[in-house]
């Protein structure tokens, strides 16, 4: 398994995939060759539910005309935490505890996982 390569290949096809250890059932993100702590290499790719909760959030302030933007840590429903941002509302309106859902957008010609409020 080539974790980083395969993850971004899935993403290019519009798929947000997580690794899971067959023995422990635990999900892993970011992708690696072995499960953290156990070192188990029995990893398989599983589609992420895309659901998550905002663990923390900040607004990165910029000098106008550049726009302020959100940066957030998202606790995925499957367990792991990832860095991302929440779109679809003003960056300062993103709150800790907010339920969010992943979507894949293209930015600078690359697929990127971002989140929006899960109403």
């Amino acid at each position: 398994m080539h974790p980083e390569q395969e993850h971004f290949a899935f993403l290019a096809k519009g798929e947000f995939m997580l690794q899971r250890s067959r023995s422990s059932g635990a999900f892993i993100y970011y992708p690696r060759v072995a499960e953290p702590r156990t070192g188990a290499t029995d990893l398989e790719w599983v589609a992420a539910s895309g659901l998550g909760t905002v663990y923390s959030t900040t607004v990165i302030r910029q000098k106008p005309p550049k726009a302020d933007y959100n940066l957030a840590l998202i606790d995925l429903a499957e367990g792991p935490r990832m860095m991302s941002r929440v779109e679809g509302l003003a960056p300062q309106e993103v709150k800790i505890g907010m339920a969010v859902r992943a979507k894949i957008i293209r930015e600078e010609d690359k697929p990127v996982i971002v989140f929006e409020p899960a109403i």
Partner: protein
Amino acid sequence: MPSSRHKPDAFPSGRSAIVGAATFGMGSAPGFNNFDLAAHASIKALAQAGLTAKEVDGLAIVVMDETMSALNFAEYLGIQPRFVDNTRTGGSSFQLHAAAAALALDAGQCDVVLIAYGSDQRSAAGKLISSSRPSPWEAPYKPLRPISSYAMAAARHMHQYGTTKRQLGEVAIAARKWARLNPDATVREELTMEGYLGARMVADPFNVRDCCLVTDGAAAVVMVREELARELNPGAAYVLGAAHETTHREIAQMPDLTVTGTAAAARRAFSQAKVTAKDFDVVELYDAFTINTILFLEDMGFCPRGEGGRFISDGAIAPGGSLPVNTNGGSLSCVHPGMYGLFTMVEAAQQIMGVCGERQVAGVELALSHGNGGELSSEAVLVLGSAAAARSR
């Protein structure tokens, strides 16, 4: 783990000491490179103990932009050390160096260890120089590293414990009050709560006054075994405990943004030194951001978990308060040349030596030097004590 694999912590408490501790080029020092600055600080620190470079046979140094820095600096000083360390954990590197130096000295691997740092980042770059590759898991989101990581720790602490923006401001104001007593501090103008609250926002909840300075500067300490320390400097600062803990590299992988590795490091270092939080006369923390001071005081047990914001309020850590914290003005107001860890060690040692002038805390027997590296990633605690404190343990 089976007990046969575990050996109790046998840190050589009190068997080595800092006999020289100096800074150089604090704030702005144009025209010097990193090693020039480190050399100036080193020569000053060695001279305090009546030593010169040729007596140094153990050398530890990191700089922002040279991974084999111990080799460069040995060459610069014209020495051939038999112990070197350029372990890089960011700002905590120097506490790790001191811990390793204590072991190496105790094992007779060397006799005189110089730990040094220098940076021209303000004059050369004008901003924090990155020593890391961009992460594919972070780069698409354009984090403002390291500020945004600490900002999210602050946001989380405020959410969980009700810590307020004004309490973050109290940390910045206390640091500034100490800096006003330190002629070497970079920024010494008065900072009011109104001035703090009105500062330019950078990454919520942080404004520029929540963030460390970008300066030049250098520091150095000299460590020897206790026998030589008694001979060289009656004011020496003995290394009573030294421990560190690594928890993650990227902020998304930090288990809990309100609990740092400082907690585990302090438990071990305090146990080695046979001290508790209430025994300390001064505490020198790695305050790269205002939230750090609150997190680390909680981690080390100076106040209950979640109470840090209330604990530091009403001038408790400012001059004249109940607990002197960051008596040089910290990295918020004194100096922050890319990595700050060695400056907490210099200040803690100098407070024990009693050479801090107007900011000197009376009768310092026990001082804490803390290091923080990465993004709350590598945390280190050194317990330093006077000769009397070392004898009584």
